[in-house]
């Protein structure tokens, strides 16, 4: 074989080789960020404690039931999933202080001073046969209701979205609209799974 003059190899194909490798890594890279709905589970009650839940008035609870056929019942009436967000918002905000919607207590909150805070609690119950997809949809709608209320309040008070508020402001807003979803111990509503 004839030797190349000077004994050097051309480096022109180096770029091509590097490109090939580059493309391989580009394709193999998965930049999936994990995202989802964050929740906090209630701690297990101590085994020797009696059930001493203080009675909560009926008007302060927003009962959401999902049966094994993925049907929704809200406050005793069947409901479409698309209406849930609006209903939950009305329940939590209670803008016209209706008698059948939750009571409010006056609380001292930084930035806002004395403000009426709702006593409402959302109670979510599902069946063992409920599908996970439906459960997430309901959780999502309820979270959306709270997020919308928070956004409206921060828009009105600070002229910013809730996500753009600083820590203290965000804490104040979340004190007014806390994300309370209480999940009862599972029951077997609606028969077999």
């Amino acid at each position, binding site marked *: 074989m004839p030797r190349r003059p000077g004994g050097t190899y051309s480096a022109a194909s180096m770029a091509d080789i590097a490109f090939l490798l580059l493309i391989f890594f580009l394709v193999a890279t998965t930049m999936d960020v994990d995202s*989802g709905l964050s929740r906090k589970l209630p701690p297990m009650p101590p085994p020797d404690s009696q059930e001493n839940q203080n009675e909560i008035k009926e008007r302060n609870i927003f009962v959401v039931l999902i049966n094994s056929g993925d049907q929704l019942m809200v406050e005793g009436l069947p409901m479409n999933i698309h209406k849930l967000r609006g209903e939950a918002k009305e329940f939590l905000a209670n803008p016209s202080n209706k008698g059948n919607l939750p009571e409010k207590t006056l609380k001292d909150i930084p930035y806002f001073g004395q403000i009426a805070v709702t006593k409402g609690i959302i109670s979510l119950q599902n069946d063992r046969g409920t599908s*996970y997809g439906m459960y997430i949809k309901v959780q999502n709608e309820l979270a959306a209701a709270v997020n919308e209320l928070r956004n409206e309040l921060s828009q009105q008070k600070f002229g910013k979205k809730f996500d753009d508020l600083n820590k203290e402001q965000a804490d104040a807003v979340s004190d007014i609209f806390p994300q309370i979803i209480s999940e009862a111990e599972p029951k077997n509503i609606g028969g077999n799974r």
Partner: protein
Amino acid sequence: MSKFKRKIKVGSQEISTASLPDIVFMLLFFFMVTTVMRETTIKVVQKMPGATEVKKLEKKSLVSYIYIGKPRQSFQAIYGTEPRIQLNDAFAKVDDIRNYIISEREKVDENERPFLTTSLKVDENTKMGIIVDIKQELRKASALKINYSTRKVTAIE
């Protein structure tokens, strides 16, 4: 006009491509370093439900994953088609979760333990029964911070 003429004279020389490999190598190293190869092979079918109100999970080192779903086609002969739990690389039972959480907890620094999150990666066709059991088990292990893994969508159907 004279300006343009001068430019053309200079441009008659070719641009050297000698530095091209260097540039490409730089990009290559960037991607090689940032690429995270998945360390667990997922053995269950995973189609996440969609949600609009998602938040990003921060600090991946503080997240432990529980996969739930139907076993993949190749595992169905052994494990059936009912939804199963997968921890790390193996199928597991509900009772194994507590030990799994304890071992995950041992892996991290003591002052970071309160921030440990359990991410539930559940197929959307799973029934809630198994998830209710898992949630009870997590409460017993006092791993209270959980995250339901979802896709981000603009509107739910």
